[in-house]
């Protein structure tokens, strides 16, 4: 039955462009989708390993810049006589490069900052994002600084001369984002239900105990940081090729805050949480745009965030799950593994089932 639900759900998602003719809503969904990917990546760190990283936008932005630069090409004057010239590459190469570069920075930040915890870790991650922003702002030769990189090409797939598909319009971009979303979901779902993912969850729940059963703390955290950063980089790449301009403002703290709100609202450490939170906070600003002046919108944003932490500290998904359990009784159970905290057995995914992961 779960399997059917999954297919139905996917069919629904794939059918949206067919019946949702208003392109504006599609645009909102594309944007929400990109931030859902970013939120899912943050969830891996924040929800599963329990590290509150408030510099996550750095990876998003690094992925965006790397992807844009690779597909636009750039010149760098190394010395007076030597200039490094990087010719433009196809966009899909750029996207890959964005993922790799962001992943590399994830590794770097993980290596140096997981030595410290708590408030210190939080402040270091904020600082890292801020430094990256200032570098993007001031390294004019590479990033054009505040003048922004514009005319970034959209993704083109296919065989040159024979068949090509350029992602100019909403519908192909919607599918692009949807497929990336699904891939990211599968990556996270497979990871957190694997040996390596369980190690990350173990660190969140009880670090000394995890270490005592042989889990390498630093290694697990760094691995989580790399996967998380790479995924955020992918989101950044998608962002840059759909919005087609990128400037240092992409590193603003408010974007990290948005991602954090999405994860917390939806339910950190759950697979569905960032998706739910991402949809709500991807759509809410557009709803608020209709009803309130800009400042009031922001004030409400802040108040909603406070209210959620106060009244639904675990987020919407666990709250719904427990409501469902109370109302209709627990299903499943037994020796079925469920790596998620709060939610009951029904929260355990079936996407992976249908992908034939589990025997």
């Amino acid at each position, binding site marked *: 039955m*779960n399997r059917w*639900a*999954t297919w139905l*759900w996917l069919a629904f998602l794939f059918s949206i462009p067919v019946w*949702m003719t*208003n*392109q*504006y*809503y599609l*645009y*909102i*969904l594309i*944007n929400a989708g990109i931030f859902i990917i970013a939120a899912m990546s943050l969830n891996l760190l924040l929800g599963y390993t329990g590290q509150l990283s408030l510099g996550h936008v750095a990876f998003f932005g690094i992925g965006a810049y790397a992807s844009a630069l690779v597909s636009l090409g750039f010149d760098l004057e190394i010395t007076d006589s030597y200039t490094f010239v990087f010719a433009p590459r196809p966009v899909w190469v750029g996207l890959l490069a964005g993922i790799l570069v962001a992943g590399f920075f994830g590794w770097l930040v993980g290596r140096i900052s997981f030595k410290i915890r708590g408030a210190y870790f939080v402040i270091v991650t904020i600082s890292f994002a801020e430094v990256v922003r200032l570098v993007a*702002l*001031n390294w*004019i030769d590479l990033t054009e*600084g*505040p*003048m*922004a990189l*514009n*005319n970034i090409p959209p993704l083109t797939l296919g065989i040159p001369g024979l068949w090509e598909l350029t992602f*100019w*319009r909403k519908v192909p971009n919607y599918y692009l984002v949807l497929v990336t979303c699904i891939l990211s979901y599968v990556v996270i779902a497979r990871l957190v239900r694997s040996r390596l993912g369980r190690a990350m969850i173990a660190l969140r729940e009880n670090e000394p105990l995890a270490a005592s059963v042989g889990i390498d703390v630093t290694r697990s955290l760094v691995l989580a940081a790399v996967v998380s950063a790479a995924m955020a980089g992918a989101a950044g790449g998608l*962002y840059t090729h759909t*919005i*087609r*301009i*990128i*400037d240092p*403002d*992409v590193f*603003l703290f408010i974007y990290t805050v948005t991602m954090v709100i999405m994860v917390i609202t*939806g339910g950190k450490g*759950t*697979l*569905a949480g960032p*998706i*739910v939170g991402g*949809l*709500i906070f991807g*759509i809410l600003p*557009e*709803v608020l*745009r*209709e009803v309130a002046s*800009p*400042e009031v919108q*922001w004030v409400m944003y802040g108040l909603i965030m406070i209210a959620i932490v106060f009244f639904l500290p675990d987020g*919407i*998904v666990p709250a*719904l*799950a427990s409501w*469902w359990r109370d109302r209709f009784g627990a299903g499943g159970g037994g020796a079925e593994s469920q790596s998620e905290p709060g*939610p009951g057995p*029904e*929260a355990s*995914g*079936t*996407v992976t089932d249908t992908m034939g992961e589990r025997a």
Partner: protein
Amino acid sequence: MKTLIKSTGFALAAAAALGLSGTAGASEAIKIGVTQPLTGPVAASGNYVVQGAKIAESFLNESGGILGHKVELIVEDNKSNPKEAVATAEKLIVRDKVPVLMGAWSSTYTLAVMPKLIEYGVPMVVETSSSGKITTSGNPWIFRISPTSAMEAKSFGTKVDQFGIKKADFLVVNNDWGRGAASAFSAMLKSKGISVGVVETMDAKAQDLSAQLAKIKASGGDTLFVTTGVEQITLVLKQAKEQRVTHRVITTGGSSSPDQLIAQAGAAAEGSYHLLFFAPWFPEAAPNPDVAKKFVDEWNKRGHNFAGLTEGFRGHDGIMTIAAGIEAAGKAEPDAIRQALWGVKVDGVNGDISFIKQGPAGKESGQNVPNVYIVTIKDGKVALP
């Protein structure tokens, strides 16, 4: 997974609700989309532009609208942020179905919106942005009434001799506008044989500029070109005085408001020069004195901040240009408006507005050649030099 389905279903239901609420009835009015920064760091300027645009809207409607229809501005906040600028463009074009846009203040926001213009085939009148890229990147839907930094520099170049500059320093805001101005003006100065000392930048939010000023003081120049918003110009003037920087200060970019400087910087503003695109103290000196006077009067009547006039007029001129385009096109359709804009001649507050072609052949953007004014502050009053 069930939870996922349930909970995402919730969110989608919310989306659907949004869809229902958003169906506006077909209105008779001709809609013009405006995207401006109404919140965030440059919110003040964006709000002035909108105030000017609203004045133009009233003027138009008082005189019977366009083609017999009322004009309705739909104003969206781009939150001083390129991503939001794109969102506003999407919303205005797709949802509100506006046939033409005005926006988006900063070059970054304008550049962000530009691919959307091509995607949907909607023209946009650019009222403030100064980056050269906007008109040279081959976007045929762009019509700019504001000058590029290069045009401003060139215009100033005709009067530079009277200042007797030997060595100039720059202090500019670290964004496209400031950096663009610094490079355009230093190129112009160098071409006139004037040497350029240091080029210092400041974060748009920076308040303490003492380090930059100490460096400028030590450079030994005689003139300091400052490009930034009026708040920061205030700070530059005050802090330059504190540190006894003796440079003559010339502000570029047309965003400074000498009245505000007099009020807030006091004696520190004395003797500074300001390049403006509108000098509201002297509407009679404008090329179209009637238009300028009428606009200034209405502005004052509405109780808007006088200091905002140097920004606000852009909104007026932008909307008037669009109105002329629609009028000439005979219908409120994007491509017709685009073609008609090439032929418009508008009596703007700044002067006559018409477009020349810029950018790669076949995909040219429209660029107006606006007037540039220089005013100075003398005895606590704005004066023509």
